[in-house]
C-alpha cells in the first residue's frame, strides 16, 4: 500500500512518509497538551504528574467548595449568556441590513463592525478601562457585557452573512407579497432557514465571552471578577492545581460546543 502513488504526479506514500510523520507530530502538538490536563486534574499530588500516582477528586472538591471560584463562575456564565443574546440579536440585524442594503455606505459599515477584530485586544482593554472609569462601568456586569459583545459581534456578523449568501431572498419577498409584514416574513420565512449560521454565531459569541481574559483582567474587578480573571491571577502567583480541575471542565464544555457547532454546520442548509 505504501508503494501506491499518493498524488497524480506519482509520488508514492513511501516517498512522503516523512510528511505523514511530521503532520502526525504536529497534530499531537496541537491537541495532546490540552487533553493531558484532564487525567492530570485527577491527580492527588500538588505536582500534577502523568499518569497520576494516585487518583483523587481533591481539586474538584477544592473548586466546588470555594465560594470565590463559584462566584467567579456565576459572573462568567451570566456575562456569556447576556453577551450571546445581545451580540446575536444586533449581529443578525446588522447582517440582514447589510445584505439588503448592498450599497457603498454598507461597505463602510461592514468595515466599522469588523474593526474590533483588527485592533489588538490589549488596546481595546485599556481604552475601555479608561473610558468606562468616569462612567462607572468598570467592575459592573453591564460594562463587561458591553465589552464582550463588541468582541463577539464580528463573529456573529461573519457567520450570519455567510448564511444569507446561500439563502434566496425572493422567498421573503413572496411572503411579503402575500401580506406578511417585513418582521413577520423575516421571523417565519428567513430566520428558520438561516438558523444554522445564527446558532454557529451564537455559540462563537458564547465561547468568546467565556474565554476572554484581557478585558476582564482590567475591567472586571471586585465581586464581578470573571472566572478567567481569577484563573489568570492565580496562575501568575503559583500553579494552583485547582485550575487543572476548572480547566478540565472548560475543555469538556469546549468539546461539547465544538460538536454542536459541527452538527449545525454539517446539516444541509436548505
Amino acid at each position: 500500500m505504501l508503494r501506491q502513488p499518493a498524488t497524480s504526479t506519482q509520488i508514492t506514500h513511501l516517498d512522503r512518509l516523512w510528511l505523514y510523520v511530521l503532520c502526525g507530530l504536529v497534530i499531537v502538538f496541537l491537541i495532546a497538551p490540552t487533553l493531558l490536563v484532564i487525567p492530570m486534574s485527577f491527580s492527588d499530588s500538588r505536582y500534577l504528574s502523568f499518569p497520576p500516582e494516585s487518583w483523587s477528586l481533591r481539586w474538584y472538591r477544592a473548586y466546588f467548595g470555594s465560594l470565590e471560584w463559584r462566584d467567579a463562575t456565576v459572573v462568567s456564565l451570566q456575562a456569556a449568556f447576556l453577551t450571546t443574546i445581545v451580540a446575536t440579536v444586533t449581529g443578525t440585524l446588522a447582517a440582514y441590513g447589510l445584505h439588503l442594503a448592498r450599497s457603498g455606505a454598507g461597505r463602510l459599515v461592514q468595515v466599522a463592525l469588523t474593526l474590533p477584530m483588527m485592533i489588538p485586544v490589549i488596546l481595546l482593554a485599556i481604552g475601555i478601562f479608561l473610558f468606562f472609569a468616569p462612567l462607572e462601568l468598570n467592575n459592573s456586569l453591564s460594562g463587561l457585557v458591553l465589552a464582550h459583545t463588541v468582541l463577539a459581534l464580528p463573529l456573529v456578523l461573519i457567520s450570519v452573512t455567510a448564511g444569507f449568501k446561500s439563502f434566496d431572498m425572493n422567498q421573503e419577498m413572496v411572503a411579503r407579497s402575500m401580506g406578511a409584514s417585513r418582521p413577520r416574513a423575516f421571523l417565519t420565512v428567513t430566520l428558520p432557514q438561516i438558523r444554522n449560521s445564527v446558532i454557529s454565531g451564537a455559540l462563537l459569541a458564547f465561547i468568546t465571552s467565556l474565554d476572554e481574559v484581557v478585558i476582564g483582567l482590567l475591567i472586571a474587578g471586585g465581586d464581578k471578577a470573571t472566572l478567567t480573571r481569577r484563573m489568570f491571577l492565580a496562575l501568575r502567583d503559583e500553579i494552583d492545581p485547582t485550575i487543572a480541575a476548572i480547566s478540565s471542565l472548560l475543555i469538556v464544555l469546549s468539546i461539547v460546543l465544538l460538536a454542536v457547532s459541527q452538527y449545525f454546520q454539517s446539516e444541509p442548509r436548505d
Partner: protein
Amino acid sequence: MTLALDQIAAGGTASGANEEALRRQAHGERRSMLALTLPALLLVGFVVLIPIAWLFWLSFVDKSGFTLIHYQRLLHPTYLLTLRTTFELAFTVTVVCLLLGYPLAYLASQLPRRWASLVLLCVLFPFWTSLLVRTYAWLVLLQRRGLVNTWLQKLGIIEEPLRLVHNFTGTAIGMTHIMLPFMVLPLYATMKTISEDYMRAAANLGASPIRAFWQIYVPLSFPGLAAGLIVVFVLSLGFYVTPALLGGGRVMMWAMQIERSTTVYADWGAASAMGVVLLVITLGILWLVAKLTGSAKLGEAR
C-alpha cells in the same frame, strides 16, 4: 421588495416616470435597511471608537496641555528592549508556525474527505478551547518537575531538568501552539482551490516534483500564505496572556508593558502612547500587505 421592483424597472414594463419613482423608492428602501445596522454600530462606536479616540487624546496631553513627552519617554532603552523582544518573539512564532502549518495544511488539502475533516477538527479543537487553559497546560507540562522534563530524564536524553518555562523558549512554544490554527486554516482554504492539473502539467513538461512544488504550487498558495503569516504576526505582536504567564516576568512584551503602566503605575499617558504605537504598527502592517497583495492581484490579471 427591492429585487422585484428592480426587475420590473429593468424589464421596462413601467412607464418612464413610474420607473424613475420606483427606482427612487427602491433606493430609499435600501437605505432604510441600513438603519438595521444601527444598534451594532452604536455598540462599536461606544465601546471601540470613542475609547480608542480617547486613548489618542490622552497620549498627546498632560497637565499643561499638548505634549509629545509620552512618546519621547518611549525612546528609553527599557521600552526599546521590550519592542525588540516583541518583534523577535512574533517573528520566531510566525516562522515556526509556517514550518509546522504549511505541511499540515498541504497534507490535509489532499487527504480523502473523511480524513481531512478529522485533521481539521484537530485544528479547530484548540480554537474552541480557552486560551488560558491551553497556556496553563503548557505551564504544567514545561515546568521543572513537569511532564516533558520527567520523560526526557527517564529516556536518558538529559541529566538535569531543562529550563523550559519562564523564559523565551517556553513563551515561544506556548505562543506557537496558540497561533498554529490561524496559519493552517487560511492555508487550507487556499490549497483546496489549487487544481491538481497544474502539478500534472508541470510534471508533463518535465519538472521534477520538487521543482514543480516550488515553482507552481507554492506561488499558487500565496494568498493563504500571506493571510496566515499576517494574522499570526499581528496577533503575536499584541499578545498578552500567554507571554505574561509562560514568560514568568522575564519576557517583557509590549502588551505587558501597556498593562503594567495602566494597572501598576496608573501612568495613563505612557499606556496610551504605547497603545497608539501598537495600533499604528498593526494597522500599518495590515495596510501595507493589503496594498502589496492588491497590486499583486492586478499583476496577475494582466
